[in-house]
């Protein structure tokens, strides 16, 4: 009986990995509504002496449990499609832009993801920007 349980667990985990290579913990944590509040780059703010810059009226993104997302920009452009977070914390978007209809994939490295903060940056970007989003609504 014990061997059967181990076998079932093994098959289950194996299937999960082969399907989407998702980081389940991060996938669960990212679900909800987020808003861009600022970013880091290589320019120091002369007033704060720090390289963090706040953003007013930042875009808003909704990550859903079914691995779809929607980002709304001001004034009227929407990116919607699928997302995934791999085990190496790489956040992948596959989206279509409305109204242009253009489709794009994009990849980012998640640096921080907790209950309130999501920060990510394009892989290989040595000057930034590292975007900072804050949760505005729990699912």
């Amino acid at each position, binding site marked *: 009986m014990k061997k059967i349980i181990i076998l079932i667990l093994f098959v289950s985990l194996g299937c999960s990995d082969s399907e989407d290579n998702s980081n389940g913990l991060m996938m669960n944590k990212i679900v909800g509504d987020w808003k861009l509040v600022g970013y880091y780059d*290589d320019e*120091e703010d002369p007033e704060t002496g*720090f390289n963090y810059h706040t953003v007013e009226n930042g875009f808003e993104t909704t990550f859903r449990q079914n691995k779809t997302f929607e980002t709304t920009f001001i004034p009227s452009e929407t990116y919607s499609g699928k997302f995934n977070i791999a085990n190496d914390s790489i956040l992948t978007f596959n989206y279509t832009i409305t109204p242009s209809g253009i489709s794009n994939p994009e990849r*980012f490295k998640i*640096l921080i993801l907790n209950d309130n903060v999501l920060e990510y940056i394009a892989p290989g970007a040595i*000057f930034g920007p*590292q975007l900072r989003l804050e949760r505005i609504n729990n699912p």
Partner: protein
Amino acid sequence: MKNYYNLFVYLFICLARLNAQECGFVDTENYQTYDQYHFNRSSANVDIHCINVCFRIVRDNNGANAAINPNIIPQVLSEMNSKFNPHGIYFNQVGTFDYINSTNYNNYLQGSSPANIPNCLNIYFIKNFNHNPSLGGIATFGTLRVTIKGIHATNDCTVSHEVGHALNLRHTFRCTSTANGFNASCAENPFNSVECHIRGDLVCDTPADYTTMGGNSNVNNPYGLNNYNPDKKNIMSYWIGKQHFSPGQGERMFSSITGAPELQSIRSYNCANVVGPSKICRSGRIDSYRVSVAPIGTPTYNWSVSGCLQIIGSSTNSSVNITRTLPSTSNSTISVTINGSIVKTKTIRTRCLFGVFRMAGLYDWVSKDYGDMGLIIPIDPEDEDLDDPVVKYMWEIHEQESEPTALNSENIKPYFVGALPNEKNIFTSSTNQAIVNWGNISKSYLITCHEITQSGEKYLISENYVDVGDPKNNPCFKNNIQSIIAPNPVRNGLINVIVQKPENTSPCNYKDLEQPQFFNSELDKVNNSITIFDYQGNEIYRNVFETNEFTIENVNLISGNNYVVNLFTNEGGFNQQVIIAE
């Protein structure tokens, strides 16, 4: 602090507007390529700025985990100078480096910044940006601080990029690719750059740019990224493979260093040189020397000379006039003491094998239709300045402006073989040789040759006037040609002629016989034209002979009559002699 920042944003908008004519890529004729700008910038007549830099290596509190090995600092400084020198900005390393033991700053924790060393641009190397582990560096204008992640110290111009910020440069994609998407209020239009001085990076010769590094940073862009043509080698971009600043960026930095109060404390005279000719070969000639670094405030100067040099006029101005006296010494020095303490000295040659070199191969007088003429500038090896060697020669043919030549399809002005089609009277050679064609217009010209040194200094080494004219008017040979005609009286229609030409050392010509390969082979051939007229002016014989001794046969002469024999040489020589038929 904010007021200062706004003030200088405004100041540099104003400065940018001063250059508004250069804005915008619309008129490509006025746009200088990077190489052209580089050449002009390194010219001896342009001031430079010198910036003090202090290298600071951060370690953990216990002295471990240093951000970089100090052995790479020369490489960092070398890269900085290679990128900024073309724009007249040089860096002077103050001391060597120091260590700062601060684990917090080694991880760039907020509030842990150490105090800057005054009067220099502080370049800190840290181990890690704790909150931005991907980041390579941080800087901004006005803080005199640049912070670099150690592993990026020699990577893809990271230091130069951040120093560019410190000297008031902005990203080339500013406002086009932002964290929140396209910002129409300040983004540069890739189709129309008329507002380039107030949009994007505020520099007009950097094309509108975007970056793909920001993820959603290009949303709402109305222009479409395919319509951008960014300079992907620009150091202030985010593209991989950065190489250079644009001339406009160089001007912006240069203007900032000149005028921004935030940058005045880091300016220095330590990179300064005494600029002027590296040799004075002729007595009586007056040359001007100056300090290469632009004045900082109101400095004092005190010039002095040694050897066989003498100051003409004031010795306390920013430049000084100097002449050579006799007897000459091999080397002499020119020194200047700036602000009573900084001494800069230049050693120059004051005894040269030649004064101003004569071009070998060049005639004072040249027959038009001469064809190609090879020229050589003799080089005195002892005159070579090893610190600033000659890298090229610039040849020019000058025509008197007051006597412009009406050009038509038949008139050919003098030109250099191999010169650019639109500037055929100018030729730049990497060797001391050039080929000139004097065309077919009778006129006087001045031909000059300057040597151009590695630093961009330009010295006149030869200038010669050349008269181009009809061969028969050649003043050099006209009165010197002699002929012997025998027998005279002529018998049986046989005339023996011997032509005697002057030696090539005639004062009217200059010809170095040791360099025959550079002379016109046609001209060097003996080529004698004979015409014989009767006393009524009728031409009764004409022929050309290739030797200086020849026989004319079967000439139908009437016994007892006199005849005139005209002898022309290809060099323009002319001789006339009377013969009588037996």
